[in-house]
């Protein structure tokens, strides 16, 4: 009996530690659609995802900055990813969401067309961004490959960087 128990414990232990090493190699992303493409950001850079709420326009800003909104007492900028990526703007739908991302002290909300899913991707399946885009300017961190699709992983730091 106790031998069996010991075996089970060992097994569990192995599974657990095995899992641990796996987690290290896997990156967790949240996928979303903007325009026709699927993008993703690391799950840990997301503070929260909310349904659209009203915002206030801020003058003297580029068009992709919709304005600011109130997130439980904090005033947070709202950026439309469609126009940020040079796509045509679209009316908000039932599926539109604000993803609030943070990088250090920088926080901003991003309007996306719809969420897809949380993605676990082994690190080896992530390739570098296409060479055609210069490393410095690119908002793309890398490209994740899954069986039937390609997911662009965005640099949150770059998204939250003011460029005007």
């Amino acid at each position, binding site marked *: 009996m106790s031998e069996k128990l010991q075996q089970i414990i060992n097994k569990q232990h192995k599974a657990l530690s095995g899992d641990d090493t796996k987690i290290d190699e896997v990156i967790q992303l949240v996928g979303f659609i903007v325009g026709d493409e699927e993008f993703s950001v690391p799950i840990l850079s997301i503070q929260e995802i909310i349904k659209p709420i009203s915002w*206030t326009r*801020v*003058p003297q800003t580029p068009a992709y900055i919709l304005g600011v909104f109130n997130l439980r*007492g*904090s*005033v947070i900028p709202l950026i439309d990813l469609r126009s940020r990526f040079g796509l045509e703007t679209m009316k908000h739908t039932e599926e539109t969401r604000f993803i609030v991302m943070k990088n250090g*002290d920088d926080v901003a909300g991003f309007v996306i067309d719809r969420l897809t899913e949380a993605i676990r991707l082994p690190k080896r399946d992530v390739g570098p961004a296409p060479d055609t885009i210069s490393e410095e300017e690119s908002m793309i961190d890398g490209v994740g490959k899954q069986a039937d699709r390609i997911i662009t992983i965005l640099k949150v730091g770059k998204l939250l960087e003011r460029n005007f």
Partner: protein
Amino acid sequence: MDEFQEILQDFLVESFELIEQLDQDLVELESRPDDLDLLNRIFRVAHTIKGASSFLNFDVLTHLTHHMENLLNMARHGDLVIDADVMDVILESIDLMKALLVRIRDKGEDSGLEISGCVMRLDAVANGTALGETVPPPAAAHAAPVSEPAPAVAAAAAEEEPDYSGMSDAEVEAEIERLLAKRQAEDAAKRAAHAAPAAAAPVVEEEEPDYSGMSEAEVEAEIERLIAVRQAEDAAKRAQKKEEQPAPKAEAAPAPVPVTPAAAAPQAKAEVKPAPVARRAEAKEDGEARGGSTVEQTIRVDVKRLDHLMNLIGELVLGKNRLIKINDDVEERYEGEAFLEELNQVVSIVSLVTTDLQIAVMKTRMLPIGKVFNKFPRMIRDLSRELNKKIELEITGEETELDKSIVEEIGDPLVHIIRNSCDHGIETPEVRLAAGKEETGTIHLKAYHEGNHIVIQIVDDGKGLDADMLKSKSIEKGVITEKEADGMSEKEAFGLIFRPGFSTASQVTSVSGRGVGMDVVKTNIEKLNGMIDIDSEVGQGTSMKLKIPLTLAIIQALLVGVQEEYYAIPLASVLETVRISKDEIYTVESRSVMRLRDEVLSLVHIGDIFEVERVFDNSEHAYVVVLGLAESKIGLIVDSLVGQEEIVIKSLGEYLKGIEGIAGATIRGDGGVTLIVDVAALMQMAKSVKSTVGQESSEAKGRGGVKNSASDYCVMIVDDSKTDRTIMRKSLEPMGITLVEATDGVEALNVLKQGDHIFDAMLIDIEMPRMDGYTLAAEIKKYNKYKNLPLIAVTSRTGKADRMRGVESGMIEYITKPYSPEYLMNVVKRNIKFNEGL
């Protein structure tokens, strides 16, 4: 190490506090050189700092303060007369001391500053006077013998004490005389002992290290001896006190007294040293006594904690605003219900307590403005010596309190203004006498509260500002053009001194006149949302009034609307609001202006500043918010005034910081975000958007009825039937006006919103697919700017109910089909105020 840091921090805080008071005391001292209290206070500062710095191993500082102490001590005992020259040396040493303290604060060490020059001067002053009056030698000679008999006498006195009760009045008199004499002798001894190290500083320094060479037993003995001396002196003092109130209680004293002085006497002989030691103890006692009276009721709190508390209060205020808003909504919906009363009570209590709490926390952040004022007497003194003028500074209201953050910001502007008054305002004594004024000029620095503001007034009785001179100087320097100068009022001309690049001093002095300074004043005051008001009369003097809000975090704001947006304007910058008719807007050199009483006020539309998409605005009236900041004024045209609200300033965050014209954001009662206008930036921006303002106003005029041709009139026809649209078009075409067609309500609304045309009227059919005429009218009337757009119903519905609905939805005319072309034309003409002459 941590403990050391803590001690160091305390030392620095204490030292800076002491020094702050010091400057003022010193200047006062110069006018009252024999005020012993003042001297004592100054002496103690040097002494305290010396003591603490030697403990903390700041040798340079110790060395400096030691020499200061010597000098001050001589003055304290009347061995040195404080005159202006001595004062210069003292002030110099104090500046050096400050520099050293700053260095310690910043770098943690006091090396690197040259103090030997100052020390030499200190010694020279001390010795020069001392030798000149030959005080030290006799004093030193006295020292030994006098300090010997003193305790002895005390002992004798103590022995005799029990007799007092039996003495006659005369005897008591005599006794008092004797004791006084004894006291004087003691004092003389002490003074001599003080003077000795002053005159012979090296000797003391040589003596001190001796301790290190002593054996432990010797040190023990020395300590014991010093304690004994101390006790003896205490006893003597106690006896003295008893003597001063010759009550029978005196009997209590005798027992211990005879013993200690007896033991002390021979030892006191041995060295002259004990006196300074005792003195140090004395000073410490003084320090404690002083500390005891003020410290007991206060605690030091980290400013960060107060800031945090203030932030929390800010959140609470937002919550309160929200609660009030919800309460209003609930009140409306459940009017007359019993629970409303209770809710009302709770809301008002919460709101009351929040306000009180906010005031309470604000008060904890308040500091008396004296903190800033304190440095000015010294400054004036230095300046008047430098400029060879006679200037007196009067300060009132230094106890007036304001927020710490503002106290920190207000110092620099005041320095500049006062320097300016000294340099440019107050004349030289000769000029003043010639002008029939008193030789000494006065600068009056005044602070007082006025509502939610603190007013700081700087008044000088100097030569005043000459508006014409200011103008010609400005033109000369290219600050303004001649044309601008002509249109300037006197007040505006005074404001020129705040322009960058302006300086009235024909000669640049080290004090001012470098052309910076005053524009810094303006920037700083604007940063605080403050206002500057200058009043001046040539020959009589100048008065400058700074009006600054008491606190920065939570402010009163005026909420204004433009199209569908709202903005908050700090109420501190709002002078007044006026409702004007569009006819009152004039265009001067492509700038919109209006007449406000006897002033000409330049106008700017808030929509131009903040790029608000402006759809046609037909209203005849405009609201003008008159903004005043520092010394400039501007009229801001807005669509509506919402009201006054208490708002909490929140930052827009790193991503959006530094947006021109926006000072921050606040969260309103309804949870929405409202942007706060940065009035200073807005005024700056108003200068560059003048062209659009011009257009805007000519547009406004156009709307007002001055159409250049018939085609400037524009009417929209909304009907789903092609035939009906054609009939209307045919009827109106003879007028030559522009006609735009829409097939239903939705399309009409879109055309309207696109803003390609500015419509003077709309002809609307009632029955239409997608959106009918009533709904369309109601939708249009929701927009502020279409409030006065004439909507004319053209329909076959003739029932009274239909007409009623038409009126309710905002139609002003009701034309029933069929109609004659002339009738339609007349109705349209009437409604668009068609000018037949075109």
